[in-house]
């Protein structure tokens, strides 16, 4: 069985139910622990069987952040005696009493087994809130069995901001929701909003808990990533903050439309057509220069590097690059992007990156490959790769220009791929 399908043989309603799943050695994508450590002053407590605890504890240990996490192990006795709630409550109390510093916020992660044992964890949280009114308790979930409805990262992204409460809104303050990397340098939207006096709040730059909670005073929430949609919607309902999604597209028109839409809502001037044209020209110059350098080198990219891999593949193909393959989990782009790409390159190889047959894939490739993303690098066994995840704070025209720079660097300089891709949580530091 081929590990890939040609895009001409794939429909947009791609079957993402892959059967047995393979865990590749690529570890750059953040897991829930990484996200939890981004809230300053937050202590995480995981309440799970030992098999589930192991991964989160060692993720934390690898970050040298064991002081940010404690655990309550679910055992056979809890199942037999039905005392999940007591163990949860008493464990949390014990942890609070023994920690050297009182946490401002505690995220309590329950697991799959709590869902199936009908544990009334919300009642426990209610008791804890009364017992410790100075601590913000937030319910969080490590329950992949519920992933069809609430996948782990979207769920946690929503819960991360649950501590925010309805408050007065400031017209000139907006939040970026679900951005784990600063957008200061390579986002046109950030530069435009800042230039027009907008105070942008994003968790990636927060270092103080009280300052973080001021996000409840923002008038608007902007989400870049699809995994943040659940949070955006939740905050719109709970906090009455306007929610706007931007597309992580490589289509110049879509970028301009999104930025101007937000400008209009914030009642600030739109990005001028002259500025947009200048930025588009800068993109064209950057991509032309890159093409001259890499020529017909095979290019492969994956879904962990950018939010819309098909959109990037289309952009590169339109500019003459030799894009051979895309590694995906599911299609995240609009159907139009998929159809345009299929028409442009019918023999583009689409790999289901976590499928069981990827374990035995022949990773040798005739000729050199320039990869964008860790999985594309691993599966093509190339040291020439752009080592980023989740677009790494890049957006819009500036994002495209910076990506061209990263591709140039990757083409010219090999990296230690096996070492880099196995490092957990690309770019993550516990606060």
């Amino acid at each position: 069985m081929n590990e890939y399908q040609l895009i001409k043989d794939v429909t947009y309603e791609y079957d993402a139910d892959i059967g047995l799943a393979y865990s590749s050695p690529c570890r750059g994508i953040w897991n829930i622990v990484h996200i939890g450590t981004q809230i300053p002053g937050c202590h995480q407590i995981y309440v799970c069987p030992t098999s589930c605890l192991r991964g989160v504890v060692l993720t934390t240990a690898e970050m040298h952040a064991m002081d940010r996490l404690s655990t309550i192990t679910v055992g056979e006795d809890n199942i037999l005696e039905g005392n999940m709630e007591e163990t949860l409550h008493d464990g949390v109390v014990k942890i609070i009493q023994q920690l050297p510093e009182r946490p401002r916020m505690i995220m309590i992660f329950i697991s799959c087994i709590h869902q199936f044992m009908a544990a009334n964890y919300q009642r426990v949280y209610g008791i804890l809130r009364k017992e410790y009114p100075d601590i913000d308790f937030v319910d969080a979930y490590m329950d992949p069995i519920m992933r069809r409805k609430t996948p782990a990262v979207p769920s946690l992204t929503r819960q991360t901001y649950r501590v925010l409460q309805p408050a007065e809104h400031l017209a000139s303050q907006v939040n970026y929701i679900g951005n784990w990397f600063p957008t200061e340098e390579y986002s046109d939207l950030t530069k435009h909003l800042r230039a027009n006096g907008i105070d942008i709040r994003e968790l990636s730059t927060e270092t103080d808990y009280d300052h973080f909670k001021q996000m409840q005073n923002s008038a608007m929430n902007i989400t870049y990533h699809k995994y943040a949609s659940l949070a955006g919607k939740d905050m719109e309902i709970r906090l009455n903050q306007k929610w706007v999604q931007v597309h992580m597209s490589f289509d110049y028109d879509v970028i301009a439309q999104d930025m101007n839409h937000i400008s209009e809502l914030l009642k600030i001037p739109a990005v001028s057509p002259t500025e947009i044209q200048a930025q588009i020209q800068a993109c064209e110059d950057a991509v032309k220069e890159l093409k001259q350098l890499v020529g017909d080198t095979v290019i492969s990219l994956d879904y962990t590097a950018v939010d819309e891999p098909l959109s990037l593949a289309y952009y590169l193909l339109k500019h003459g690059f030799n894009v051979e393959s895309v590694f995906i989990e599911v299609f995240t782009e609009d159907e139009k992007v998929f159809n345009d790409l299929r028409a442009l390159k019918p023999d583009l190889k689409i790999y289901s990156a976590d499928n069981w047959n990827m374990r035995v894939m022949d990773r040798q490739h005739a000729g050199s490959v320039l990869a964008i993303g860790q999985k594309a690098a691993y599966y093509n066994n190339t040291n020439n790769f752009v080592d980023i995840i989740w677009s790494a704070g890049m957006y819009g025209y500036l994002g495209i220009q910076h990506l061209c720079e990263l591709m140039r660097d990757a083409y010219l300089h090999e990296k230690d791929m096996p070492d880099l891709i196995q490092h957990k949580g690309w770019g993550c530091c516990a606060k």
Partner: protein
Amino acid sequence: MSDWHTHVFTSTYTADVSGVCSVLYELGGMTVLHDPSGCNSTYTTHDEPRWYDTKSLMFVSGLDEMAAVMGDDSVVINDVVKAAADLKPRFITLCGASIPHIIAFDYRGVAHLIEEKTGIPVLPVPTDGLKSYISGVGLASREWIRRFADPKVPVKAHSMNLLGVTPIDFADQAHVEVLKKSVTPEGYVVNACFAMGDTFEKEAEVYAGAVNVLPTSAGRIAARFMQGIRKVPYVEGVPIGSYMSQQIQQAIQDSEADGKNRTAYDDLDTDGNVLVIGEEIYARSMATAVNHTAYAKEHQLKASAIWPDVNEGLNEDDLIKRVNAAQIIIGDPLFRNIIHNKETSMIEIPHEGYSGRIYHNNVPQFANCEFDIEERLRERK
């Protein structure tokens, strides 16, 4: 109130599911972990140093809410059959974590159905994700031996097996080679090392070994099973330094002669000023090795040991009490954060089963007749 559930500061030992995958890793099978997600990447990231460089087959079933609620075993059956048809493993192992456990997933029945459909032997290993790797390694070893080993093969005199051997306890093959050398009495041969560095065929002749050696408690379940089937005696101990090495070698010879089980380590008191933290047989062997050094006698050192329970792990309250009472701690570097007494020194011996891959490159070859714990005691910080 002391409770074993809560760990404010310390890590957790790896789980039974990782033990299953690890012990069967080199035998040409396909291990399927029946679980929603997570356990597989935990194993492949933290507990399996061979993952990047080999293509051993280990997958997660991706059990979801609907299949669990409906008890729809056809999902995992069909997925396994489909993958097996393409990958053609020599055997299939079916293990799982806590959700299959609480919904009473029928491992044996499902294994039988998959076997009927594929014609490939399927081993049911009913793990539950609640226990430590000691249980997983043991259950998987026993199941594999029950299915594939020939109990009628002639016993080779002066031969022995090592049971329960995985990178979780011994890091890499080079370590296992010195382990083998260090437990082998003169005139003896290692019949099988279950399960690192040997072929399927060699492991299948495990009953030819006259004695089983357990350098980890992960070998106990298989050892007891083999004793029940064919009265193979076993010896427990890790050859940490020359004293423990000699003790084990003598015990092997004695056990072959009289058919009785032996422990090569001493009975230890729970009090002492040196505390060894780790897997049971390792910890007891290390403490014994310490107590038989000249340095310990000179400085009135007395070593005791503490090890994780298979079901409950290490009770953090008890652990901290024992750590506070000790002058010297021998254990994984991750235990450093519970040492609050400035006078207490630590000898770091990383354990993959506790700290995973973090200190993988720093694991010393402690299962070695030439390992000098006395030198470490003298040079400790």
